[in-house]
């Protein structure tokens, strides 16, 4: 088996695997034949493997960005003025967790909640931010309510547990009954250390009214569980060991210092650990994105068709092979998107289409070189070898600049002084993937195809 054939088989294998991944989960084709119409449905099998006891399930779908499927992106600024400097990062993290839990409970599909700090020129942290992306929630009012500034901290007593409570989480939570004690009665909470064991504990201190309520509850319910709930979700479930009448309680447990700090911050604020304020908000209705993506995909298909025709008109048979390489490029691109769950945005689609235009560049460079070498009287085999070899230097040089630019746009290291906008990143990612794949298809795939299928005599152009 020649090396070209081996390479060809390898490429064929890659393409088949990629095509399987790239194929839509379900493709419905309506037909109309001899007055009998109907629909054929092709289905792609869902990957469901068990490798060494680990189950691996993936149904490869394209992930759509907020600008396509509609949704809301909100950037919040956390007001840290009342938090001591050393606790600020913990406070930011627990705010993030509270928000993440809320949007999770609400059932938003794959919510993104990220915290970030913006440093000033002197290296000090200037601002604490949280970015929330909610796909499918295109009503900003709904989104803002979801993130919420009106959370409730309250204390609930565990009543007589029903038998299901041990097996069902909902029944377990329902077994808690509200008390009169709420976040408003709490004066402050802090982290202390147990004098005997040295482990961190969370202390609570109630205001006069709270002290009275707390004393009543603890007197009547020794050995009962007094759960602390945030937004109806249990934060801690401490047991009452002794009646506490002075309004000072200590919660011991198996928590580390960070966890204790986190709990204490959440208790202090009652709701979100720190007050938050909206500084940027973008809501896109689903209809806008859907219209745009339909048109852009159609434009892309027409554009690819035109480029393919152009290549055949210019380079004849060689153009056909370049076109095959271009199709391989398209299949590989979609497969890589699905494989690495890359989010597709509208600028990303522009980047993809742009890289199609660039993908044939390598072919054009090579074919033009080959033409020249043939004109200089070199035999076909040698002309091809020289064409590929000489063109490679130019291809490499020319693409390096694009690769670097796309890296600056993607900002993979999350450098604070470079772009962090999702749309710009979306474009950068597709451009980078496009250039890399096009190097593979434009050079290796085309060369293999030419070597195997194109003989000198068939070359008239």
């Amino acid at each position, binding site marked *: 088996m020649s090396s070209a054939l081996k390479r060809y088989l390898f490429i064929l294998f890659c393409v088949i695997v990629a095509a399987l991944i790239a194929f839509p989960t379900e493709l419905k084709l309506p037909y109309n034949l001899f007055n009998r119409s109907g629909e054929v449905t092709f289905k792609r099998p869902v990957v469901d493997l068990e490798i060494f006891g680990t189950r691996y399930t993936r149904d490869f779908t394209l992930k759509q960005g907020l600008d396509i499927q509609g949704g809301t992106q909100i950037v919040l600024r956390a007001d840290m003025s009342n938090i001591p400097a050393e606790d600020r990062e913990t406070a930011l993290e627990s705010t993030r967790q509270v928000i993440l839990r809320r949007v999770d409970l609400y059932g938003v599909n794959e919510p993104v909640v990220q915290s970030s700090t913006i440093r000033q020129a002197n290296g000090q942290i200037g601002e604490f931010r949280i970015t929330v992306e909610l796909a499918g929630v295109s009503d900003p009012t709904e989104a803002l309510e979801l993130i919420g500034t009106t959370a409730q901290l309250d204390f609930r007593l565990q009543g007589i547990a029903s038998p299901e409570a041990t097996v069902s989480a909902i029944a377990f939570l329902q077994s808690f009954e509200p008390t009169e004690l709420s976040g408003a009665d709490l004066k402050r909470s802090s982290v202390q250390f147990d004098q005997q064991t040295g482990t961190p504990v969370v202390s609570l201190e109630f205001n006069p009214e709270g002290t009275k309520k707390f004393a009543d509850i603890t007197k009547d319910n020794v050995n009962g569980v007094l759960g602390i709930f945030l937004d109806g979700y249990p934060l801690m479930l401490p047991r009452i060991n002794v009646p506490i009448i002075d309004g000072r309680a200590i919660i011991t447990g198996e928590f580390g210092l960070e966890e204790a700090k986190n709990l204490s911050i959440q208790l202090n604020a009652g709701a979100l650990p720190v007050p938050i304020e909206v500084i940027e908000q973008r809501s896109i209705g689903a209809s806008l994105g859907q219209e745009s993506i339909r*048109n852009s995909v159609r434009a892309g298909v027409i554009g690819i068709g*035109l480029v393919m025709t152009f290549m055949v008109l210019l380079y004849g048979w060689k153009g056909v092979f370049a076109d095959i390489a271009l199709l391989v490029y398209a299949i590989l691109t979609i497969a890589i998107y699905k494989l690495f769950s890359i989010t597709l945005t509208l600028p990303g689609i522009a980047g993809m289409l742009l890289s199609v235009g660039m993908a044939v560049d390598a072919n054009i460079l090579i074919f033009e070189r080959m033409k020249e070498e043939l004109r200089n009287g070199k035999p076909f085999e040698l002309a091809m070898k020289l064409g590929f070899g000489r063109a490679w230097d130019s291809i490499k040089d020319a693409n390096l600049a694009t690769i670097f630019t796309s890296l600056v746009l993607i900002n993979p290291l999350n450098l604070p002084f470079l772009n962090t906008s999702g749309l710009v990143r979306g474009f950068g990612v597709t451009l980078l993937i496009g250039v890399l794949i096009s190097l593979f298809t434009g050079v290796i795939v085309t060369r293999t195809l030419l070597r195997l299928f194109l003989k000198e005599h068939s070359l008239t152009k």
Partner: protein
Amino acid sequence: MTAHIFKHYWLYFTTSLAVFVVGLVMIAQGGLKPSIDFSGGSVLEVKMDVSKINSSQELEERIDKIVDISSLQLTSQKTLILKSKSIANEQKDAVVADLGTEFGTVEMIRFETVGPVIGRELLLKTVFSVLIVSMVIMLYVMNQFKDLRYGVSAILAMLHDTFVLFCAFALLGVLYNVEIDALFVTAVLTTLSFSVHDTIVTFDRIREIRKKEPNITIKEASNKAVLQTLSRSLNNSLTIIIMLATLVLLGGTTLRWFAVALLVGSITGTYSSTFTAIPLLLLWDDVAKRWSKGK
């Protein structure tokens, strides 16, 4: 071959000069309009029965009572776009509710609010990324050619392309109120890399020819190189132009101006590698010769 593309190479500078003059006039007219990405503010786009609008002046006065809007625009997709200083969600709800009493169903298509801090940050980030990309490309080109003349010419051509892009958008700003947003900046950065892409290929060829034929003048070498690479440059640019042009003509409305920016960038990038970078190289050569003669 006898064709002399660069006999009167300075003529090519006049084309660029004409574009620059038009561009500068447009910039002076306030053609470069920053979007809320940079300036901060709010944009609200709603879909409603726009045929019920009697006069946009009346409508503007009506909305101004709730929120002080800076512009009101009817689009070809029968939507209404309102722009204002940064407003809160409640104020937007009030506007939508008010429009509802007059025009029936009002569907919110998008609502974007950018605080002034974010806008300033983006501006800084933009300047940084443009500086970083051009610096690295500069170092790369310098290292590639090890000859100051080639490097400087390539970089001047690249700056030329960036400026052409700004001129084009200043013109579009005056004609169609097109704004400069984060995606425009992305297009500028992409143009930077495009621009050197073609220039490197042409310059590579000039050096190759001069190595093979040491007696040839730089002008003749350039002429030969361009004739040899012309079909490649044109064909390659044509495929990119085909893709971008279909996207401009048929693609979604949200992407249109981004695609236009990329299209302008790729056209000027192709033009400049032949008709700006090489003439600059020749000009340098001529000036240097005259300089040494004068001494």
